[in-house]
């Protein structure tokens, strides 16, 4: 290869993107995900009105003129609920993943970088949160502090961060021993800079993958809590639709199937994207 053709800069992330583009499953997942996000953002414009309004007779089957997905037990339009619910489900998923990653990276980075007693304390704390029964713990938080979306997001974040903290710590333990970190230290970079500007960017690939998958599991978690009734009753979310219609699962199964499929497709799309990111960001797989 000639030196001239090499002069174009190619960042590691640009190469990863190139890999991602060639993964058809991941691209399909991304397309579906973008469509869902578009619906969540534009939905209220495309389909105005309060989704909680009773618009027609209860249990109108899907396909009825004007009510594509039918109505639920209170005569509310399921399509409207679904579109407005997409916004809530996705927001909670993203926000909870954000909380998870923020707590996880902070704890993992400090533990992996400073070692010693800092690591001991932080990792025991991580283990403490890891052994808590997650559903029970989040139910307690929501029950104590109120079933608002904010609380649900915080509850999901609080029970999910240990996995991110462990991955971050493991990456930090590996990378801190590499020579470019020692070189940066010799070059006068302060501890904070070493942690967040030198080591963290190199530790990101597995964390990004974990975060992507975390969005999917947070959506599921939110659906689970809503199903149990631990949600803001004034806000439509997919889990909440399933929860409120659960008594009629035998008589009008579509009222729970439709939001269930929405959750399934969203989480599947996110998983495909996560897998694609994993392949693209993992240099060992890149050569194949």
């Amino acid at each position, binding site marked *: 290869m000639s030196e001239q053709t*090499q*002069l174009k*800069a*190619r*960042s*590691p992330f640009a190469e990863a993107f190139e890999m991602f583009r060639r993964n058809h499953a991941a691209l399909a997942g991304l397309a579906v995900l973008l469509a869902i996000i578009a619906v969540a953002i534009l939905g209220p414009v495309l389909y105005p009105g309060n989704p909680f309004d009773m618009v027609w007779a209860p249990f109108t089957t899907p396909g009825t003129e004007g009510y594509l997905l039918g109505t639920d037990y209170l005569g509310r339009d399921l399509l409207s609920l679904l579109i407005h619910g997409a916004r809530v489900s996705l927001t909670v998923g993203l926000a909870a993943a954000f909380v998870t990653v923020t707590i996880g990276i902070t704890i993992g980075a400090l533990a992996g970088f400073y070692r010693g007693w800092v690591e001991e304390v932080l990792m025991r704390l991580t283990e403490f949160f890891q052994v808590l029964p997650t559903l029970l713990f989040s139910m307690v938080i929501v029950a104590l502090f109120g079933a608002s979306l904010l609380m649900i997001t915080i509850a999901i974040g609080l029970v999910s961060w240990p996995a991110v903290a462990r991955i971050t710590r493991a990456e930090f333990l590996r990378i801190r021993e*590499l*020579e*470019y970190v*020692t*070189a*940066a*230290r*010799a*070059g*006068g*970079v*302060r501890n904070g*800079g070493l942690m967040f500007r*030198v080591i963290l*960017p*190199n530790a990101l690939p597995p964390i990004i993958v974990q975060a992507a998958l975390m969005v999917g599991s947070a959506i599921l978690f939110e659906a689970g809590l809503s199903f149990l009734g631990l949600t803001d009753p004034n806000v439509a979310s997919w889990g909440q639709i399933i929860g409120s219609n659960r008594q009629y699962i035998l008589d009008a199964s579509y009222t729970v199937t439709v939001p269930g499929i929405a959750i399934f497709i969203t989480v599947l799309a996110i998983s495909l994207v996560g897998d694609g990111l994993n392949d693209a960001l993992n240099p060992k797989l890149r050569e194949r």
Partner: protein
Amino acid sequence: MSAPLLSVENLRIELATRGGMVPVVDDLSLWLNPGETLSIVGESGSGKSMTALAVMGLLPRIGRVANGRIMFEGQDMTQMEDAALRRIRGNQIGMIFQEPMTSLNPVYTVGEQIAEVLRHHQNQSAAEAWGNAIDLLDAVRIPNAKGRAGTYPHEMSGGQRQRVMIAMALACRPKILIADEPTTALDVTVQAEIFDLMRDLARETQTATILITHDMGVVAEMADRVVVMLKGRKVEDGTVVDLVNRPQHDYTKSLIASVPHLTPETRDTSAAQVEIDQPLLSVRDLTVQFPVKKRFGKREIFTAVNGISFDVERGKTLAIVGESGSGKTTAALAVARLVAAQAGQVTLDGTDMLSLEGEALRQARANVQVIFQDPYSSLNPRLRAGAIVREPMDNLGNLPAAQRDARVAELFEQVGLEPAQMQLFPHQFSGGQRQRISIARALSTNPSLIICDEAVSALDVIIQAQILDLLHDLQRELDLTYLFISHDLGVVQQMCDHVAVMYMGDIVEYGTRNAVFAEPTQAYTRNLLAAVPSVESAKEPVQ
């Protein structure tokens, strides 16, 4: 002359890459006679290991033999079924790999692993195989073979593990032994022992050997004939004596020239003692200890550096040589305050380095910079080359921000890179180029001391020579002072003014270069010097 045992004819090996099939070996022909040692020599990427893997039928999945034949006992191995290949592999052709740490299975004892080979290939009973395994360990000179057969690989040293690998490869009395850089990961004294063993075993068992190496000195000491490879093609072949004395190709000449001649140019050892009036760096009684965790939370102290003292003169080079585990790197990093020292005094340019703390320590780092060994892990893969060189200037020193990029460009030119390459990322450079970036980074704060920690050990010999030249030139131009850490006596001899030999945390010999190389006073130093392979053994006497 009898027919060759193995012959490779017009071999072409291709690897599948994104850009299609790329040849890594092309039009290679060679042959191996019974009982002889053939060496394939070349730098990394020359196709020498791929050739060995093709002979074993072990090419990676993305590789294939595109053309040519590999004839063994009248059969073309490239056309053979997998089952037939498996019978030949291990039984008729054995192989030793480079890395003794990873080529043994850590969960089985070494005895079990050798016995497994015998049971599998020769259908021996468990008891029979175990007995033979002990005999084999004895044959490769593992002391107390019977007792050691029950130990696990991690309980053995690197040299012992490589002996076990040889025992496994020879277990079925193969006709051919392929050794792929068998001693590259080992210390030079251990390498000499392994070569002694291989020579003796080859003579006793009449095994033909293909020895793959990058070191012409190894070739001269071990091989009968040699094939020189460059970029997948054979550039020259012949007997070792012919090739060493009458090399035809320029590449062969440069390979031979790269082998160190440890006999010094002058025998003048009058100034054996290091006498420096005003040293730039003065180290006294430096001690570095690490806590080692043992089972059940017990702690032990491991002393890596045991109260050593030395001086470095301004504008000169002090080399610290030693084998792995001697504490040479730890000592150097302790001087730079990159490893914590427990006791001693380090004075650099009048500054007491060990007493510095916090911001004062950070600022003092501008005065001592390090060039690291591994060009693949010493550069942050997420930063552009220019940013890597600029980083120390952003944190230390007092160059105004506006002038820094110009200074980076200047440094790039100084180390032989194009300023246009500043925008590239590390993985777009070759190993030698990366080491140049590392050097530019070390120069960026105008340090008075530069520590070269095995700075050329990971490079091919010819690149190594270029980088050493660069370091020499920079020293002359900029009046640099080097603390040069290396295990390679040849490199040390080219680079240094003074030498300190370290062994197990102590400096066992300390003197001027000529004194240490010409008349070493310590037995350890003499052993070390004698163990370095040289081309002298193959040289014809000068008429």
